[in-house]
């Protein structure tokens, strides 16, 4: 597969890991946070942590839209399904997020709710067209990468005059989350591996403010393991040089300005929410979007008069600390015992790119071989 296989080359990997080892100062500890859940997954899947020097730690950040989705939002989706009899269309990983009363969308489905997994929002539109007598709601989660497709769908629905389609919007923004982590740095971070495809949409220039304000380097990295290793090398070099710049390793897909067409479409359909609750990070101002009044007919919250109610996480759940990089999955008291992929207590265990699920699925040997 072109542009994939070349970026997974094992020989180049060895060269890069040697360069990283040579570049790191033995007397110094390096801690880099990869913001993006896709990177968390890739790091785990390729066993990258096992290839890095002992004084270089990767801290898993909150860039997993499933992980940061608060219980209250999943409750809204379940209410739509069980109490309001809608057909809820959703991307895969939301199905197992634990919500209130031990429920989840998968369990709601088992109780007779019409929950359908879709690969693309256009599938939800197709379902709505095919069943005009059903109310169809698309559960829209995701960062800036996934928001433009939702915008396209809403515009399309408006153009067609689709009367039974709406969106439960839980789209969130990346830079404010990075700022929230940096504002309350519980763990010393030396830099960030910036998200790949969020950056494709928002552009590398979107991070300039953060490097300047917080004096931390950000290297935007592609999705493949060689990209990630190269970005780590670039971060180590920045730290050694005392620089705090935005660098772009993923130049084949990320430009300074990003995708203007996508940005314009998003601006047409969505506006900033005043604030939004993030699991683990609390309520962050201007960190999420909602559907504009002009498209109110497609806003499930308005259409079904849904009110958000904050629900506290399970007492023993330490997802909050893990999402902020303060604790590692294995530091959580209930990791791998009470909280497992089959019985996730918190969202970090549900999504394949959650720090806990990734560590459980791929990384547990490391703690056993140390």
């Amino acid at each position: 597969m072109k542009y994939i296989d070349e970026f997974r080359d094992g020989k180049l990997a060895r060269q890069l890991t040697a360069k990283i080892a040579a570049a790191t100062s033995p007397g110094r500890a390096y801690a880099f946070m990869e913001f993006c859940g896709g990177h968390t997954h890739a790091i785990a899947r390729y066993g990258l942590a096992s290839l890095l020097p002992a004084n270089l730690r990767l801290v898993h950040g909150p860039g997993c839209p499933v992980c940061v989705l608060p219980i209250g939002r999943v409750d809204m989706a379940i209410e739509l399904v069980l109490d309001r009899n809608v057909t809820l269309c959703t991307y895969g990983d939301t199905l197992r997020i634990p919500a209130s009363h031990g429920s989840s969308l998968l369990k709601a489905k088992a109780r007779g709710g019409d929950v359908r997994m879709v690969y693309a929002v256009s599938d939800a539109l197709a379902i709505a067209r095919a069943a005009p007598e059903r109310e169809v709601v698309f559960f829209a989660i995701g960062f800036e990468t996934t928001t433009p497709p939702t915008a396209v769908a809403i515009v399309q629905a408006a153009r067609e005059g689709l009367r039974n389609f709406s969106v439960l919007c839980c789209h969130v923004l990346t830079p404010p989350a990075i700022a929230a982590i940096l504002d309350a740095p519980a763990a010393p971070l030396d830099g960030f591996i910036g998200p790949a495809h969020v950056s494709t949409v928002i552009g590398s220039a979107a991070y300039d403010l953060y490097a300047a304000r917080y004096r931390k380097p950000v290297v935007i990295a592609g999705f493949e393991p060689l990209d990630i290793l190269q970005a780590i090398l670039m971060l180590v070099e920045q730290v050694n040089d005392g620089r705090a710049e935005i660098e772009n390793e993923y130049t084949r897909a990320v430009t300074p300005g990003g995708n203007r067409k996508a940005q314009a479409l998003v601006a047409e359909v969505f506006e900033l929410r005043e604030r939004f609750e993030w699991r683990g990070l609390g309520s962050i101002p201007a960190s999420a979007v909602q559907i504009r009044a002009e498209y109110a007919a497609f806003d499930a919250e308005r259409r079904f008069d849904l009110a958000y109610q904050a629900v506290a996480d399970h007492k023993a759940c330490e997802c909050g600390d893990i999402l902020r990089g303060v604790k590692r999955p294995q530091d959580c008291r209930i990791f791998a015992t009470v909280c497992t992929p089959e019985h996730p207590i918190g969202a970090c265990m549900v999504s394949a790119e959650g720090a806990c699920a990734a560590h459980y699925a791929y990384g547990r040997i490391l703690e056993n071989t140390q």
Partner: protein
Amino acid sequence: MTAKAHYVRPLDLKQGRVDMSHGAGGRAMQQLIGELFVRHLGNEALAQGNDGAVLTGLTIGRDEVAVPSAARDAAQRHPFGERLVMATDSHVVSPLFFPGGDIGALAVHGTVNDVAMMGARPLSLSAAFIIEEGFPLADLERIVLSMARAAQEAGVAIVTGDTKVVERGKGDGVFITTTGIGLLPVGRDVGGARARPGDVILLSGSIGDHGMAIMSARAHLAFDAPIVSDTAPLSGLTEALFASGGEIHVLRDPTRGGLAATLNEIAAQSGVGLLLDEQAIPVKPEVAAACELLGLEPLHVANEGKLVCICAAPDANRLLAAMQAHPLGREAARIGEVIADEHRFVQMQTAFGGRRIVDWLAGDQLPRIC
């Protein structure tokens, strides 16, 4: 730091409901089997925990009776003539017709293979049909013809059956359950608990073909890929392996849950660890590409015509050659080895150079977006 003691939350037998993860071939399904079925139906045969059961206490052709014993190994060591093996399989695949096969072929192959994985020669099958009202007779005939062909190819007879019809809406077209019996020759002793450190792991061919052929045929994942199900009867291949004289410890066909589930099952049953070489595991390029598109791992995707053979190391080359000489084993490969590991992890050396574990699938196979 060692892994915490393995706590498993028990099934909620009072309030819980069956959900899709219980049928996915992973841990959830194992738990349902253990805590419900085996618990109440438990007997020595069921406790063997393999794909089929050796009916101890029943022999063919000799006067002596098998020594009643709680230890399966002990019963196996007595060469009192051929023993009966019984296995059963239900088929609920959707769609019923897919590239490379249909539910009828699957129904025959599935049970033939379960019997063959016990080291037995399949003899006869029963076939029970639950058909939904309104199901086209033309399709039913197509399925039955397919079963007849598959049975003939596998050298088995379908000797008895049952037919039920349920009202429209109460069945997914047709469900087929087949039960098979076979004869286990003297001197063969294979089973999930027989893997030993130092053994070699062989795989008969490429993984993920069947699951991705199904995905491609499902309407809501619309892509047309030249992927064909690998559904096939493996009894000819297993006989070739036994004929080679190599010492075989485990035979298993990785179906739902993929190779990952099968290897984890074996590791748990045998109390060992497994170490795989990712580069050695054959995956067809189209299957790899389809998995990339959907965010799936080939290791978790179902197969219907492949087997894993764990054997004594000195005989590995001989057994591999026997596999490769057979039409169903042309792409056979040596993919790893068995090691001592109290944690019973399945580990993998990634093509990229890192090491990680290969875990069971947590729930139903869900394409990722993230």
